[in-house]
Structures are given as structure tokens and as C-alpha cells.
């Protein structure tokens, strides 16, 4: 598809990484449920193992179906390549494990998905990797938290669930001045709302479980490299710039001027930690991506209507969406997220915990469960579920109160969603 510029987003969402299957003519991406791939010859086998030729050997390292997903997400993000993982959490772990070991330090936003907060605050500390948490809008705080052993700055495009927008250009600049990359979790926005590489991020990952797949059917993650971070110039990443005994003494930054990170992440991280994605799961995510732009447009349209309804309801004390001028990230969202700041947001019921419970139990269209980014509308009470391990102090830092309700607005008729919310708020009022 030659032209004067890259193909557009919708074309890439349908075609990047895949063509009709040359052997069968199949138009859809085939699911290659094969653990291994037959070598053409002994010479080719040896060449594949030694990175002299490219191809598939074993599906923990790569797989033809999964590779289509990797290329497609990399294309949509504007990256150089990607690695699909068993989950979004596996993608975050792969990024961290590729860049650092015991004795290293991360500076991260306080406004993170609870699972990410757990990984950084508890689990990685056990392996000698320390994290300092900074409020995403505290620019001086980001700078002040950096130590000589800091190897990564990390935040979410919009923090879960308060929707604090990460000032990627500014935080990216702070990271680069310190000689470290900025990793961004773009799960809640998807590349349709923002491409973090365009704003200064170096690595991006998704829980593909959410908007990329979009139908609540699959767990998966994708880690994308923008290819812009100069590991050699930084001088802080011996993992990428010095000979690695664990893989033929390869110096990854010599092998690939822009792709050292991906080389090591696949050749070490997938090989040794093994959190690869099933080709069947990859196929399900690809099916979702084909309609990503259509779904995201409808998610945003419905969200705007629901936000407007909630903001004017007397039993609602706060609506946390940057669409509203009252939201602290309103202006930044206008700048970085002109198509919208996502369809996952929270609001507070002006009442007690029992009223919150009555509200959730009265909902009929919204499903009460622990996921976001589904085609169907979802609801959850973060303090007792997704973020229950966090202390009250940490909850407050993440912008979550005991009565906070999180919504994920789906693709149903907006009028039906608003009607469902209206009836549930009535039930909450009666429960006072």
C-alpha cells in the first residue's frame, strides 16, 4: 500500500501485520495453534536460534498469529514493534524486568490501577526494586523523586479511576533529563484517544483485556517500544548496551540502534519468565481492534451524555471526568486528549456506604464486575474491590473515597444507560 504517508488509523487497525494467507487464501487472520514450527534445514534452525534469520521457533517466544497482533498495536501506536503478553500486568513486569534488577528505583504516579500499585509497592520491593509514588500532577515531585539509581518513570495516560491526566510531555522531559525512559500505561485511552509516543513517552503498554479487545472475552497485554530512547547515550542500561552472557554475548544496542529493548525483552523476558500470549487470545484481541475506532467513538459519545446527566443529579456530589471544567485535569485533557479522556470514570453518591450498595444492586443494564473497557457498561465499588488492599491514605492519594463508584460506559443506547442510573439513584435515595 504505497503512498506519500503512512496508512491511516482505520486502515492499520484492519490490515497492519496481516495479508490474505498465501497458502489457503483465508482473509481473516488464521489462528496458529502450534507450539513449534518445523525448520527448513539444520542451517536454518541454527540461524533462527542465533538471530541470524527471523522466524518462529516456539510459541513462547513468538507465534505467527501473535506477531500480527504485535505489529498491529505497534502500528497503531506509532512504535517500532511490540511484544504480546499474557496480561497487562505481564507487560508491565516485562518492561521493568528488562530494564532493571535489584537495587534499582522507579518513580511512579500514585494514580495507578490497583494491580500495578501492588506490583510496585509490594512485590517488586521483595525483589529489591524500590518505587517512589508521586501525584501525577506534582511536576516538582516527579523531579525531586529521581535518584541516581532511578531507571524508569511510570504513569497512566489517565489515572484509574480519578482520570488524572498524565502530563506526558513534561514528565517525559523530566525522565529524559535524568537519562531514563518514561513508560505509560495507555489501557484506558487506547491509541484512538492518544498516542503517547507523539508526546514524549518511550514505552507504552496496554491491558488488551480492555478497549483493544473490547468485548470482555480475553486476558492479554501488549508492550510497545517507540524506538526513540537512546540507551547508549543514557549510559544507565548495561542490560542493553553491554555483552549479555545469557544470549550469545549479544550487545543488543549494537545489534539494533533503535530496537535494543525489544530484542532483550523477547530474547530474555519471554524466554525466561514465559508470560506469553496464547494465539487464540491474540486472535480475539485482533477481532476487537478491527472495530476499535468505531467503538471508541461510541464510548466517548455515550460517556459525554452520562457525565452530563450525573453532573446535574442532586444525589451526586462529584463526577470525576475531565470533560467537566471542575476536574483538575480539564485543561490538560483538552490539550492531550481532544477526542475524550476515556469512558471509565468515577463519581460519588452524596450518601453513606449503604446507599452506595443499594445503588449498585439496583442497576439492571450496568453489570457489577471487576473489568473495564467492555462493549457492555460496567460498574464497581473500588474501595471494596479493585483497590481494597490499599490503605485509606493511599486510596485518598489515588482520589478514591469510600463511596466512590466507578463506571465503564459501554455501547448501549445512551438513553437506556441514563434510565438505569436514574432508577438506581432513586433506589439509593430511598435507602437513606
Amino acid at each position: 500500500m504505497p503512498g506519500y504517508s503512512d496508512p491511516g488509523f482505520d486502515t492499520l487497525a484492519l490490515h497492519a501485520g496481516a495479508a490474505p494467507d498465501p497458502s489457503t487464501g483465508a482473509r481473516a487472520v488464521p489462528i496458529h495453534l502450534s507450539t513449534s514450527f518445523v525448520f527448513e534445514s539444520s542451517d536454518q534452525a541454527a540461524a533462527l536460534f542465533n538471530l541470524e534469520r527471523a522466524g518462529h521457533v516456539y510459541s513462547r517466544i513468538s507465534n505467527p498469529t501473535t506477531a500480527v497482533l504485535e505489529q498491529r498495536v505497534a502500528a497503531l501506536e506509532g512504535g517500532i514493534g511490540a511484544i504480546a503478553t499474557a496480561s497487562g500486568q505481564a507487560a508491565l513486569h516485562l518492561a521493568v524486568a528488562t530494564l532493571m534488577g535489584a537495587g534499582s528505583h522507579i518513580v511512579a504516579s500514585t494514580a495507578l490501577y490497583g494491580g500495578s500499585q501492588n506490583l510496585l509497592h509490594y512485590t517488586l520491593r521483595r525483589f529489591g526494586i524500590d518505587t517512589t509514588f508521586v501525584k501525577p500532577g506534582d511536576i516538582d515531585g516527579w523531579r525531586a523523586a529521581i535518584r541516581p539509581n532511578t531507571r524508569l518513570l511510570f504513569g497512566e495516560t489517565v489515572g484509574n479511576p480519578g482520570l488524572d491526566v498524565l502530563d506526558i510531555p513534561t514528565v517525559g522531559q523530566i525522565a529524559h533529563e535524568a537519562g531514563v525512559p518514561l513508560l505509560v500505561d495507555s489501557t484506558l485511552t487506547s491509541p484512538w484517544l492518544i498516542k503517547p509516543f507523539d508526546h514524549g513517552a518511550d514505552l507504552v503498554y496496554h491491558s488488551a483485556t480492555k478497549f483493544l479487545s473490547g468485548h470482555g472475552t480475553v486476558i492479554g497485554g501488549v508492550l510497545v517500544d517507540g524506538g526513540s530512547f537512546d540507551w547508549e547515550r543514557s549510559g544507565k542500561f548495561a542490560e542493553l548496551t553491554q555483552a549479555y552472557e545469557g544470549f550469545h554475548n549479544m550487545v543488543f544496542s549494537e545489534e539494533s540502534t533503535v530496537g535494543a529493548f525489544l530484542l532483550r525483552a523477547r530474547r530474555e523476558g519471554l524466554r525466561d519468565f514465559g508470560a506469553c500470549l496464547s494465539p487464540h487470545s491474540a486472535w480475539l484481541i485482533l477481532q476487537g481492534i478491527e472495530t476499535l475506532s468505531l467503538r471508541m467513538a461510541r464510548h466517548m459519545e455515550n460517556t459525554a451524555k452520562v457525565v452530563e446527566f450525573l453532573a446535574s443529579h442532586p444525589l451526586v456530589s462529584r463526577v470525576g471526568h475531565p470533560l467537566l471544567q471542575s476536574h483538575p485535569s480539564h485543561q490538560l485533557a483538552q490539550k492531550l486528549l481532544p477526542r475524550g479522556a476515556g469512558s471509565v470514570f468515577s463519581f460519588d453518591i452524596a450518601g453513606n456506604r449503604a446507599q452506595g450498595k443499594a445503588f449498585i444492586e439496583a442497576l439492571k443494564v450496568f453489570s457489577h464486575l471487576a473489568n473495564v473497557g467492555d462493549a457492555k457498561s460496567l460498574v464497581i465499588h473500588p474501595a471494596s474491590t479493585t483497590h481494597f488492599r490499599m490503605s485509606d491514605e493511599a486510596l485518598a492519594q489515588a482520589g478514591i473515597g469510600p463511596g466512590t463508584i466507578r463506571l465503564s460506559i459501554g455501547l448501549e443506547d445512551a438513553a437506556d444507560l441514563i434510565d438505569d442510573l436514574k432508577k438506581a439513584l432513586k433506589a439509593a435515595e430511598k435507602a437513606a
Partner: protein
Amino acid sequence: MKLGPIYAYTGGKDFNPAQPTVVFIHGVLHDHSVWILQSRYLAHHGWNVLAIDLPGHCKSGGEPPASVEEASAAIVGLLDAAGVQKAALVGHSFGSLIALETAARAPDRVSHLALVGTAFPMRVSPALLDASVSAPMKAIDMVNAFSHSSLAPPPSSLGPGTWLYGGNRALMRRVLASNPKVNVFFTGFKACDSYTGGEAAMDKVQCPTLFVLGSADQMTPPKAAQSLVGKAKNAKVVQLPAGHSLMTEAPDGVLLALKDFLKA
């Protein structure tokens, strides 16, 4: 031209004076890493590999060559510095003209000549030359789009999962940024555009010549190589289903053509 130290990637193997040597020469806004797969394979199959960064590009010092002839002098200088009497030269695009000129100027130093994605004359439009200075990022996007022919290439340089459009764009930006003093985008294109000695050079080439051309190449389409093919005395032409970025869009095809040509 001031020659500085020239960086050469050796494919993960030490230089062995007992082995034959192959020199890989990249094109405009590229570096040694566009040859990862081909160079690594040959390095592990009996060849010394010197996949260079051209002077003034990335890890190499000195000034970027202002002409194909200047770049050719740098290649001869490299062979002298490495103590290599005779080497196979493999060049892509701008690098193919450099390899050709070197084979003509120093026929006793070149055992094989492989021209990948080549053309003569290698004209660059005045608008693109201007854009390489006035709007280099836009010009990179244009060249990048013109250099690729498929949204679904086979597994490539970083393995499966590589997105070639993005990888090439990132590399071009990195190479441009690697020399803050001289715009190597413009100097490279200008050197291609102003090179007039292609046919005369081919007349002087004494070694076997391989042409590896992309059937979907919009930058150097196969027909644009015919004047050189017609002049070559001992030529083989391999056409691959790829665009200008042959080494990444058809990595195995390029490797197998080189392997056959070099008897590696």
C-alpha cells in the same frame, strides 16, 4: 573530507585475518543496523563482517561524505585500516553507489560487488532535497512511506512483532539527530543526486556483480537499474517481492541472494 574513526559492526564475531571479508554499506539516514540479519549470518558462516556507519553518521567520527567519490575513499581507507587487501562490498541505495564507485576505483581491492536497491542516475527531486532541510520530519515520513511496500512483511530484523514503518522512521530520526552539525539527510541525498559516474564506474568493475532489486521499489524501481545492469560484465539479477527497504521487507531473500553470490 576529514576521516575520523569508522565504526563497523562485526556480526557478533571477532575479526579473523584468515577469512574473507564483506563490507556492508548503508544508505541515506541509515546505519549498520539495517543489515543485522544478513551481516550476523555471514559473520557466523566464515566471513569477516564490517557493517559500517558511514563517516559522520551515528558511531562513526569524521565528516559525512559530500559525494559518492568521497565516500568511496573512506571505504578504501577502511580496508587499509583493517588490513584487508580484498573484500566483497554490499551496498544499499546510496551505499550501492559508494560500493560501485569503490569497485571501479580500486578493482584490485574488491572481490564481489552486490548492489541492493540501486539505480543510476539516482535522482532526488528538488522538492525532497529542500524538504530534507526545511521539514526533515515530514521528508522522513515521505521517504519512509515510499520505502515500504507491504503492511504485512515477514518476520524481520527485530524478529516477529517488528513494525517496519515505525522501525525505519525511528532509525532515520536517530541517524539525523546523530550529527548535530551536518544534515546527513541532505548531504546523502545530494551526493546521490549529483553522482554522474555510475555507468563509467560499471565499465571499470572487474569482479562479479549482483543486483538485488525490489519489484515494488518506488525509490529505485528495477527499471532504473537497467543502465547499470546493461553495462555490467558478469552480472546476476535477483528480483524480490519487496519495496526499497529490501533488507527488512525481504530479509531471507536478500540473505539467500548474498549467500549464493558469495558462496557462503
